[in-house]
């Protein structure tokens, strides 16, 4: 019994999921991962032949929004698979055992599966004084550094583990640091957002299961599949931006007609995430669609990137935007703070040209690739 490791596919079938639903799941995941049709077969094959992946999920300085988002994964089968089909051997929010029995669970994984298990981290690590986050009498830093020694890879969930999030905002009183700043020698995948979108979290897990390697990452170690597009470029309200149709104050006529929230402080032009594509909670909506500007929660340092309701600088420089790609290349390696001015100036250049055209409502986006 100990050595019997059922494959992902066996698990799913055992749970009463039909082969058809299983393939549907693979198709959905392939689409989220940006794969072509052949990728579906690859996912299906991988999930049918690979054993379950042992996972240790730590909570450090955090608010548990990542765990909460994780259990919101929208495809019905995803909730089942991700909770049961990876082997989620340590997860403080969900696990039955407490105290010594809980600690034994992750120690067993480390002993039994050296080099095979994944460490997932929710929360930042305090460095000013290790006593600022202790579990079982040991510090977050001690626990993490020991656990990653023999792991296969690290997944940093959310802005806390990826960039320190709110507790690292100025003046960062606890010296909160993201995972990649306190460990070395292991690949770290930063799954950004506060929290990350549920289906993005599921997508990253499936990528690891399917391809047995980490997804392609951008300069900030975020999976390109989900973080290579600006919210601004994928926003369904973009046409209003291009047409110069803006909300001037909350709940004004423009707001009631769904105009662009740029002037209300929208950080979509400097934010890379899938909100406009995958959207939130089963694609029900996303912040802009529900009338609030993007606050940029998938970017490092977004808490200190100006007040939320102050619009980004650079409105004056209207002109033709040459290539959106160039901005993307620059952004991949820059920090969110650094890119703010550059990105917005470039994008707003296009605005002036379009604003002079009459057919405002019917204007179709014509970004050059």
């Amino acid at each position: 019994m100990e050595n019997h490791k059922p494959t992902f596919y066996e698990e799913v079938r055992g749970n009463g999921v039909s082969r058809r639903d299983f393939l549907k799941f693979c198709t959905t995941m392939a689409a989220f991962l940006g794969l072509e049709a052949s990728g579906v077969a690859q996912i299906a094959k991988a999930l049918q032949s690979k054993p379950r992946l042992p996972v240790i999920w730590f909570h450090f300085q955090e608010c548990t929004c990542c765990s909460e988002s994780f259990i919101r994964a929208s495809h019905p089968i995803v909730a089942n698979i991700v909770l049961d089909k990876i082997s989620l051997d340590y997860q403080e929010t969900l696990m039955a055992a407490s105290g010594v029995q809980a600690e034994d669970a992750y120690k067993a994984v480390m002993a039994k599966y050296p080099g095979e298990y994944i460490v997932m981290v929710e929360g930042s690590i305090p460095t000013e004084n290790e006593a600022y986050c202790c579990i079982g009498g040991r510090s977050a830093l001690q626990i993490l550094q020991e656990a990653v020694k023999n792991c296969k890879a690290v997944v940093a969930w959310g802005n806390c583990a990826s960039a320190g999030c709110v507790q690292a905002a100025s003046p960062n009183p606890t010296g909160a640091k993201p995972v990649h700043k306190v460990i070395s020698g292991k690949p770290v995948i930063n799954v950004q957002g506060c929290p990350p979108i549920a289906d993005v979290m599921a997508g990253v897990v499936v990528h690891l299961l399917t391809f047995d390697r980490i997804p392609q990452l951008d300069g900030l170690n975020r999976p390109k599949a989900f973080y290579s597009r600006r919210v601004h470029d994928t926003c369904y309200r973009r046409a209003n931006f291009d047409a110069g149709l803006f909300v001037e104050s909350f709940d004004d006529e423009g707001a009631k007609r769904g105009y662009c929230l740029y002037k209300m402080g929208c950080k979509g032009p400097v934010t890379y995430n899938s909100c406009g594509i995958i959207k939130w909670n089963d694609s029900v909506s996303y912040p802009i669609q529900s009338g609030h500007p993007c606050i940029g929660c998938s970017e490092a340092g977004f808490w200190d990137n100006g007040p939320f309701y102050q619009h980004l600088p650079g409105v004056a420089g209207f002109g033709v935007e040459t290539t959106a790609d160039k901005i993307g290349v620059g952004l991949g390696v820059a920090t969110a703070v650094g890119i703010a001015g550059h990105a917005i100036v470039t994008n707003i250049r296009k605005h002036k040209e379009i604003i002079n055209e009459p057919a405002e409502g019917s204007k179709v986006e014509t970004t050059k690739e």
Partner: protein
Amino acid sequence: MAERIVIDPITRIEGHLRVEIEVKDGKITDAYSAGTMVRGIETILKGRDPRDAWAFVGRVCGVCTSTHSLTSVRTVENALKISVPPNAELIRNLMANALYIQDHVVHFYQLHALDWVDVVSALKANPAEASKIAQSISSWPKSSVGYFTDIQKKFKSFVESGQLGIFANGYWGHKAYKLPPEVNLIAVAHYLEALEFQKEIVKVHTVFGGKNPHPNYLVGGVPCSINIEEANAVNAERLAFVGKLFEDAKTFVDQVYIPDLVAIAGFYKDWGAIGGGLSNYLAFGDFPSNGYNNPESFKMPRGAILGRDLSKIHEVKADDPEQIQEFVNNSWYEYSKGDKTGLHPWEGETKFNYTGPKPPYEHLDFTQKYSWVKTPRWKGHPMEVGPLSRMLVGYASGRADYKEVIDSTLKALDVPVTALFSTLGRTAARGLETKLVCGWALEFYQQLLANIKNGDTRTQNNEKWEPASWPKHAKGIGMVEAPRGALSHFIVIEDQKIANYQLVVPTTWNASPRDPQGQRSAYEESLIGTPVADSKIPLEVLRTIHSFDPCLACAVHLYDENGTHIHDLKTY
């Protein structure tokens, strides 16, 4: 000789909680509760735009997500004297209702059930018998023999894989588990169903706040606009969606949560006499039906109960410096006037003073400071906050809806009213409250539709949006009943910036260390006398601690590394 037992981490909660107990002759004789993580969000808020505060404090907690954001916008609006339009009040109520439903259901099934339900025992169940029981207690359609057979099969193959995941090292087979295998099987099935259900009801947040967890809020109203002639706003389709989500939620609560709660409670009536703890209960009240500034209109009444005397409701005023005070004598902070002083949040100070052991450590020294949680008191009394307090205040206030659900449940279980003062009472109160909330949500929803039909689509008051319109100095208080209990925020605004921001949070009331008089707070007090069958297996401790639904990230948020006073409000 008493035996000292450490339980750390306490799992199936939010945040980092350590409990140490002393056990003598199979009973807990003493208990200590410690919060072991800090972040310092209040320090970070200083100097920022008050309109941004909701987003920062929203990140205090992602489990009771949205509740701090709601408190924050109320706090800023109170300071700046902003009234929000009726639709905004209703949408905020609906979002808070959705949170209650999601949070309480997840608490019951995902966080608490495994204390009462032996999932491994479900493998021995007779699915036909389980089906019969399920159909006898509820009309929920997922109750056929085939359904329970499939669930059992699924679970069996999971267990046989040898990789037990989140169920590994659980306390399966412990003699304190009392449910028959069939009831365990029903609970396992509903554990999985609840997981599916909870991601639906939060879509109310997604419609109005754009995402969940951490939906968006706005000072002056709500960010979403209403326009029934527009695809890009809250229109008939969006409203119909919200209506359906609440209808479905009511069905789930009435047909799954409540019947399960009553069925499971029936096997654990002895827990109606265990875990009572404190005899004082505090509720700020919430869900305004006629404006937040009119507490008489609240669906949940405000008040305090002392000494379990249900004949008297004491008036609660958060701005009265004599009522709410915080102490740090056992917390890793120090006060300039000495650690035995109590300070109202308006005059509060936070001076960091970590005196605990350097990690790794085996034990905390309870003769000294031992937690990052401060100790709040109401008129000097330790108070329990949360669903039980709210239900008691509602019951003692003579509210008909409260009396009906409480009396009928006591009758169904054939237990006296004193059974409410217990671990079981706390868990039952949470379920009964969810039932009430489902009904109120549908009322608020109908009111929202009626307003729109009558031509009122306003969702935002922009009068005081611009900082130039604000006074030079302002201070405010926001009070909310969070799912876990009475929550209050305090703000001081100076020159359009946050000069001070302070939170007094439900789990701070419940999980705090002892006060200077040596009085225990709710967690510690409730553990005294609890039987412990096997001191190596802390199942009974988890039952009582989980009955409070701990949220430690909320409780611990204060901190200033340099030891400077960050909450000196004496000049106001």
